[in-house]
Each structure stands twice: as C-alpha cells, then as structure tokens.
C-alpha cells in the first residue's frame, strides 16, 4: 500500500513524463501513440501484499500453491522428475496408439529408455465416444489418435510392462478419458483385483471433465445431467474405495485450443469446477474429504506469456477464495489448485510452417511457466502440428530445453519473481475481475450446465476464435512464418528425423483390422450369459439415480463386456447428447 500523497506525486510525474520525455521521443518518430505500456505504483493503488499475494503455500496462493519445490528433485509441482540419468526420464509422457499391443511395445521401449512411473494414456476416438472398434461409425478412426480399448483384455495387454517395481500399487496412471471414465476406472480396478492388488492402493488421474467436452473437445456421449450423475458416482465411489485416485482433471486447455480467450477459459473452467464440487457436496460428502482428489489441467495458454502468468496467479487466488469462502472448506490444503504440469503455450499456438519455430515458442511458454511456479514444460514438442506422434528428436529437444531452463537459467529458483511488479499485479487484478464478471454471468444463467445447454459457452468461444482469425488475416496478430515473414527470401527449415517415428505408420494403418480381430476373439471366448446378466443389471440400476453404477460396471468389465456394450445400455437409459454446432 502506498501513501496517498506519494501516489499523487507519481501521477503528477507520469503526466509530466508523458508531456515531455515521451512526447519528444514520439515526435522524433512522427508517431501519435506509444507502442509501449508502462506501469507505476498508481496502477495498483490498493495493493496489499499479504492480501493479494501472500507467502508461497499460504492463502491466497498467488505466489505458489506449495511452500517450496521438492528438495533434490526440482520445482514446485510434484510427480515429475527432471534430471537423474540420461535419456527421456520424465514420467508422464503421453503415449499410446494403435492396438493394445502396439501401445504395450511403445511403453516397453520407453521403459528401457528410462521412463519412470505409470502410463499416461490417450485413447482413440471410438473408445472416448463409447463405440466398439467394429462399430461402423468407428471406421477409419480405430487406434488413430490413441490406443483402442474395447475390453479388459486390452487393459491387461497395455499394463503388461507395469509389473514388479512398476506394479499398479507403485505407479500412478493417467487417462485422458471423459464420458466413459467410469468404465476405464472399472477396468483398472478389475485389473488390479486380478493381480491381487486392493483398489484402495490404486493411484491415477481420470480426466472425467465432461462439461468442457460439450463446449470444446467434443467427446460427449450422454446429455449433461446423466453425465454429471456419472461423475458424482466417481466422486462418491472413489472417496470410499479408491481414496488415492484423482477423480477429475478440470481442463481449460481444450477451451483455449478451441479458441476461447484467456478470460473465457479461466472463467468457464472455474464454473465447471464449481459444478463438480457441488456434486460431492450434494451427495453429502464433507468438502475437505474429497476436494484433494480434484486436479486441474488448465495449462494451455498463448504466446502472450506475461498475460498468461497473470492468469495463473489470478487462477490460484480465485480458486482458493471459491473453496474457502463459498464452499467453506476448513483445511488450508483443500484451498490449493492442484495442477501437475502447470503452464505451457498450448497446441493452437504451434504451426506446421517452419516447425522448428515451435520449439522457440514452447521454450518461451515453459520459461513463463517456470516464472509462475511450475516445472518448465516445453510442450508440445515442435513436430506436434506435423501429424500424430512425436519424433524422439523433438521429445529430446523438449526435455533438454526444460533442463536448460531449470538448471542453467535457474528460472525456478525464485518463487513468483513478479510478485509486487506494478504491471503483473495490475494484470492479475484485471484478469481476476474480468473472469469474476463472466463467472457471475454464467451463475446468473443457472450455472455451467444451463450455460452449456443454452449454447452460451459454445457461442462465446466460437466468437473469440473467429475474432482471432480475423486479426490474423488483417495482420493485427502476427504469426511468424505463417502470416508474415514468409516471402521467398525466408528459409524453410525442415528437421530431419533420424530416429523412426514413435507411432509406426504401418502399424497405425493395420491397427483397425487387428483390433477388430482381437475384439472378435474376445467376444468368442467370453461367457455370453455372464455378459448379458451384467449388462441387464447395469441397465436396471441406471434408472435409479441414487445407485452408484461403478460396482456394476466393474462386474461388466470383468465379464469382458465391451466399452460399446456398456455405453450402449447406458445410452438406452440416459439418451444421447446431440451437439447442434452452436455458433
């Protein structure tokens, strides 16, 4: 806080500067307006360090959600390992394509290269949408953007390499799965049971953030209301039986990639998070007992990294206030926004034109992430826009860039180095205020579900995407090598990939036929009567909203019922959501 007289003096001097020093410079350039901004104490008049920033790991967590890095392993968020041996040692690399066997081979190879921890699995679109690999609608999509999972047999194969020191009770798995999240959870429970591991020892993260699917990512199956009931089932089941499982990963990144502005992505993600918290509260759970299994995946941003740092700072503060003040959580550990990974530039900021430039972009994002309390995350690898699957070279460059940011540049040493910066505090307040206004607007509509059913969030995001495109086309927004600096004198730098593609293109092409054959075999070997019984009892139970369906889904997957069959009976009760393409 500044003295009023001092602020008056600062304002007087600012005016004087504008009329003399600045004006003279602009006149020299023949310009009317300065291309720059400059911030002074008078821009953050009411700034109070303890109220607005606080110490790391303490309310309102603007500086950092943790008081320190994990000593010896590096920066603030846990679970990722940098350094310690050569090669690609970071845990958590997103990996999976083709059949379960193709994915198993990938993990085996990665483990020999020093991979630590559990798998981080992308699923193909048919799996994400609850269709079997032999469904006509799945044609051309099986095993394309992730691994195809039809039955528990596929899970058994994928998890082959995860035994011994990587046994299920020693690793954490990560699944990018939403609408069928409870089926994937059930498969993990069933797999563990077969290996004699009790479910209470299982750790992992389900994405399970269905609301953003309607808005941005598109892998919904059921309408919003029954989908929320499924998430309520995850929260209540896990809080009792799988207490170490992160039940949800609330995402902003997909909305950003779909074109949302930074304010929209922040506000909508917090609205959605609030809706999920309410599910647990309405189910009669104590907020402090289940909120710590809520995680966030808001990490996508833009190239305007200073503004993105402000978003991260505002986000931590806003979430802490929501949980503490609105939901009355008592344990300070409940107030923190848990996010493994933190901040990166997001997929939409990378381009296939002169693709090595994406490394420069990702490094800037990772440096910014390091400067706002996260492990540097040089993502995505530079060749992401060239097609599915990253080259080993691109991954190595990303790993090394993160190491250079951390160990050579030492950017993670000082927590929240922008704390107290006139610009950063001004921007953080501004982001908070604008996002709070948008949150109020959604709340006045009746919350996230209504705002989605009405197409409000969808239309807002489409409008922002179009506005950005218009700016790109009139060159108000410049993208190097895309809409500018791309004449004939510029050199197209083509990276050579010496190491073979992570996702073998031949295997990818063969995956569909192979997976259909696998599925046919499983259907032939299983006990058809047992499957029918399990599906029938699931269907009956689905009518009763108070019944938790997860135990019944576990029974169904144990009988080798398919993802398509399980979603099929649920569709017959819940109905299907039809997206009308709100614009």
């Amino acid at each position, binding site marked *: 806080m500044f003295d009023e007289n001092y602020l008056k003096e600062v304002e007087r001097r600012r005016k004087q500067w504008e009329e003399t020093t600045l004006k003279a410079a602009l006149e020299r350039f023949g310009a009317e307006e300065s291309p720059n901004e400059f911030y002074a104490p008078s821009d953050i008049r009411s700034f109070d360090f303890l109220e607005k920033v606080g110490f790391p790991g303490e309310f309102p967590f603007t500086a950092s959600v943790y008081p320190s890095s994990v000593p010896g392993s590096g920066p603030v968020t846990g679970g990722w390992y940098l350094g310690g041996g050569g090669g690609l040692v970071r845990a958590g690399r997103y990996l999976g394509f083709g059949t379960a066997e193709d994915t198993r081979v990938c993990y085996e190879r990665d483990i020999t290269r020093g991979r630590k921890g559990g798998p981080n699995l992308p699923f193909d*679109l*048919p799996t*994400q*949408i609850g*269709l079997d690999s032999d469904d*006509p*609608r*799945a*044609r*051309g*999509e099986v095993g*394309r*953007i992730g691994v195809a999972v039809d039955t528990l047999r596929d899970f058994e194969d994928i998890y082959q390499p995860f035994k011994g020191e990587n046994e299920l009770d020693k690793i954490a798995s990560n699944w990018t799965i939403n609408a069928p999240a409870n089926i994937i959870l059930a498969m993990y429970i069933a797999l563990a049971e077969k290996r004699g591991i009790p479910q209470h020892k299982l750790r992992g993260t389900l994405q399970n953030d269905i609301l953003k*699917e309607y808005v*941005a*990512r*598109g*892998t919904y199956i059921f309408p919003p209301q029954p989908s929320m009931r499924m998430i309520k089932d995850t929260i209540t089941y896990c809080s009792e039986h799988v207490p170490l499982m992160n039940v949800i990963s609330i995402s902003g990144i997909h909305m950003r*990639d*779909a*074109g949302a502005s930074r304010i929209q992505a922040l506000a909508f993600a917090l609205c959605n998070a609030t809706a999920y918290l309410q599910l647990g509260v309405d189910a009669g759970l104590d907020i402090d007992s289940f909120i710590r299994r809520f995680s966030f995946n808001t990490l996508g941003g833009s190239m305007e990294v200073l503004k993105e740092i402000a978003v991260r700072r505002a986000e931590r503060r806003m979430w802490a206030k929501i949980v503490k003040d609105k939901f009355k959580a008592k344990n300070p550990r409940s107030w923190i926004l848990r996010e493994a990974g933190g901040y990166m530039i997001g997929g*939409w900021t990378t*381009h*296939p*034109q002169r693709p090595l430039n994406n490394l420069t972009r990702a490094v800037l994002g990772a440096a910014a992430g390091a400067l706002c309390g996260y492990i540097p995350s040089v993502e995505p690898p530079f060749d992401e*826009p*060239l*097609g*599915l699957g990253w080259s080993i070279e691109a991954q190595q460059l990303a790993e090394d860039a993160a190491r250079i940011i951390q160990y050579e540049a030492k950017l993670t040493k000082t927590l929240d180095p922008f704390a107290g910066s006139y610009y950063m505090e001004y921007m953080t307040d501004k982001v908070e205020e604008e996002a709070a206004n948008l949150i109020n607007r959604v709340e006045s509509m009746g919350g996230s579900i209504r705002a989605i059913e009405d197409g409000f969030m969808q239309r807002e995001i*489409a409008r922002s*995407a*179009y506005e950005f*495109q*218009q700016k*790109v*086309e009139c060159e108000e927004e410049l*993208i190097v090598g*895309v*809409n500018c600096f791309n004449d004939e004198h510029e050199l197209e730098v083509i990276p050579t990939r010496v190491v073979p593609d992570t996702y073998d293109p031949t295997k*990818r092409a063969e995956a569909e036929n192979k997976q259909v054959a696998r599925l046919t075999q499983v259907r032939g070997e299983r006990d058809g009567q047992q499957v029918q019984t399990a599906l029938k009892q699931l269907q009956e139970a689905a009518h009763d909203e108070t019944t938790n369906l997860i135990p019944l889904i576990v029974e169904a997957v144990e009988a080798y019922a398919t993802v398509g069959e399980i979603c099929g009976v649920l569709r017959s009760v819940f109905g299907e959501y*039809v*997206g*009308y*393409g709100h*614009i």
Partner: protein
Amino acid sequence: MNKERHIKVLMAKPGLDGHDRGAKVLTLGLRDAGMEVVYTGLRQTPEMIAQAALEEGVDIVGLSSLVGAHGYLFPEVVEQLRKRGLGDVLVFGGGNIPKEDIPPLLAKGISAIFLPGASIREIASCMRSKVEEKRKGSSY
C-alpha cells in the same frame, strides 16, 4: 443465369473428431464473405453429410478433420454424394492433413485441400472460382 448467384456451403465434421474451431470459424467467415453456410455440428457419418447436402441443395461440402481419419472419410463422402446423384457437388477438405496425403485425396475427387494457415479469403476465393468454373462448364 446470374453470374453472381449465391453459393451455398455445407460445413461438416465427418467422423468422431471434436475439433470444430476451424469449421466454426470458416462458417462465420464464409457467411461474412456473402455465402450461405450451414454447419452440421459434430459426428456426422458420410451418409448423413451427403443426405444433408441433398436436402440443403448445396454447391459445396466443406469437410474438416484433425485426427487423421481424412484418408477414409473424405473419399467416402464423395462416394455417398455420387450415390445420391450429387456428383457435381464440390468437396473441399481441410485440417491437420499431412502433405503426402493430399495427392491421393485429390485423385479421389476432393476439389481442394486447405492446411492450417490458409486464410478465409483464400478459401472463399478458391470456392468462388471452382463454383464458377463448374457453372460455366455445365451451361455449355
């Protein structure tokens, strides 16, 4: 007929892909460029797209895919259009499509493929000239 007769476009998302930023942006952009554009929303089968093209009486079908399923789905849409007697409807494709996949798609009847970075202006002008070409061809 009137040379400036308006152009009607069906913007469609074939298959299971949920990335519709491009489809939506282009829908809005082509509308602003004076075309009539209908957007299907997500998860359209080639049959559904061809049927919608028939019902809407469009000049162009625009297909967007970012998940590597274009190789099967785009030609399948062309095939379904032909089956309905709509062989003269132009099919445009766009999305995250590897360059080496373009020649086979063009050989299978796709009129043009646009990659990330293409401007609305460029796409609209290509659409206009291809429709014009087709209309001239059919009137003689």
